[in-house]
């Protein structure tokens, strides 16, 4: 931003008030978004909730698992916290983006000298950092739970499957976060964003089950496949353990395999396809929000 640089010069020329740090635009955006998040009680509530849920889930699995897991399997349970992480991440994105419209603080940011595009970039940066924050927390809480209730056997390191699982979880989170981001930009309201987001995923879940059942009855392969690529199904698929590891609970696998539509579903769930769909959805969500954000007056 050359303009801001030249302004930096003029402030220094005043001689009485030197800028604290010579940071670029990205630094300014990051510092401001971090300050806004840090001071927001709702952000800490979400963080706390995630920690508690993941801890409880890990302890429950560690203590009451019907099968002896062993380290290797135990380790694969850790990323499961990402499910909860996705939810908290999406809520945090909604709560830290949407109110900027109601409070007219986004507008003030532009008045103060940010380009509209810079403000938008700040929110994207915030979302990326939030994703790392919640994914990292979920992982740390899961790992801590695992260490607190160590499984039997040799301790093992992470494998390629684990890395793939983590990449998939990240993409699953991106679908959640991207849809929250998009809804926040379109509805410009925190409550509306959260309501529509949660409402949609519930409705999509029900509709998908019914659709799958129907497709299985009628033998409509294409329908089952298409349903598997709805945004919610993609996010869910990417965060399901079965995509990356064999089930540790053979009984479960048997039950699942008997349920109608499962075979079709399993067929459609190739990691590469799901990952590609997730990336496409996230990019589309961001692109839609950007176009809309640019077009509308703040």
């Amino acid at each position, binding site marked *: 931003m050359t303009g801001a640089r030249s302004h930096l010069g003029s402030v220094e020329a005043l001689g009485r*008030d030197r800028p604290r740090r010579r940071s670029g635009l990205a630094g300014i955006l990051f510092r401001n978004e971090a*300050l806004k998040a840090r001071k927001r009680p709702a952000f800490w509530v979400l963080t706390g909730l995630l920690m508690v849920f993941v801890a409880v889930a890990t302890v429950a699995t560690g203590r009451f698992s019907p099968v002896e897991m062993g380290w290797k399997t135990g380790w694969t349970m850790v990323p499961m916290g990402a499910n909860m992480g996705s939810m908290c991440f999406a809520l945090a994105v909604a709560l830290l983006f949407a109110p900027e419209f109601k409070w007219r603080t986004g*507008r003030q940011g532009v*008045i103060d000298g940010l380009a509209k595009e810079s403000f938008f970039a700040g929110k994207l940066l915030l979302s990326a950092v939030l994703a790392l924050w919640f994914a990292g927390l979920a992982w740390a809480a899961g790992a801590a739970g695992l260490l607190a209730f160590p499984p039997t056997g040799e301790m093992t390191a992470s494998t390629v499957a684990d890395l793939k699982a983590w990449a998939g979880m990240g993409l699953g989170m991106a679908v959640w976060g991207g849809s929250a981001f998009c809804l926040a930009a379109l509805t410009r309201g925190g409550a509306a964003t959260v309501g529509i987001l949660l409402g949609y995923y519930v409705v999509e879940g029900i509709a998908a089950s019914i659709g799958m059942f129907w497709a299985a009855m009628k033998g409509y392969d294409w329908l089952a496949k298409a349903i598997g690529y709805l945004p919610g199904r993609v996010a869910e698929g990417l965060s399901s353990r079965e995509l990356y590891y064999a089930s540790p609970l053979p009984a479960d696998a048997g039950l699942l395999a008997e349920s109608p539509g499962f075979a079709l579903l399993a067929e459609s769930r190739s990691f590469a396809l799901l990952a590609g769909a997730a990336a496409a959805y996230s990019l589309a969500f961001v692109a839609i929000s950007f176009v809309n954000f640019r077009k509308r007056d703040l």
Partner: protein
Amino acid sequence: MAVIEARGLTKRYKEVVAVDDASFAVERGQVFGFLGPNGSGKTTTIGMLLGIVRPTAGSFSLFGASTPGALVAARARTGATLETPNFYPYMSGRDNLRIAANVKRVGRARIEECLDIVGLRGRAKHRFKTYSLGMKQRLALAAAMLADPELVVLDEPANGLDPQGMRQIRRIIRGMAERGKTIFLSSHLLWEVERTCTHVSIIRRGRIMKTGAVSDIVGGDKHVVVKADDIERLLAVMDGYPGASSARISNGAVVARLDSGDLGTLSRYLSGHGVHPSHLAAESKTLEEVFMELTDGTPPGAAEAS
């Protein structure tokens, strides 16, 4: 070079034409008042200048800049408020200023200085949502002053302030003006503009009715009020005086428009015609009278349907 120059700015919302072909120029060092009744398009015009509202037609420049990129840089050299104070309700006044200060690349010492100037230092650590309207306005003013900008744009800065607060704001504005800053402020308060501004634009239903120096606008139409024992004779003599026109009797005095010459010339003319006035004074119109004439008697502060 004008600090602000608007050329045919127009904003249309479906049926409503909020701003209609507005053109004006604000020169360096002016305290420019943008005066108009409620709903006349003041906020919309300022919103366009600040990059918040996209003009339907027309163009403008700030510090000579008119391309999008250059305008962003020009806005960093401007301190501005639009309509209401816009801050994060859950954050303290001080933290809210930090957000603006980061964008404007201003350090912490200056934040404290500005808090001091507006008298908010004592409440700076409290959350914005606990502030009274007047305190919110002061915080907005502090934010506008942060970078010691060359141009300050204030949308109804006196809104919600008590008389003391208004005086304080006037003092701050004068102080900035004395240091050569350019100030553009909107208001529907005539006396506020008359006391604070050097220049004024009067806007009504989105159209600019008149622009000029306050002294020209209020002093442009000088009236002379003359009293004498024989009022009928006085009227006849005044009718014959070449330097005045439209003489009439009003409240036991003859009132005429003074077109040329000063009171001395008039006095000598009257004596020469055997009239010895008991009272002779020039009166200029108040801004209020000019405003009323231009806005069809819509009193300032009354909502206007467009």
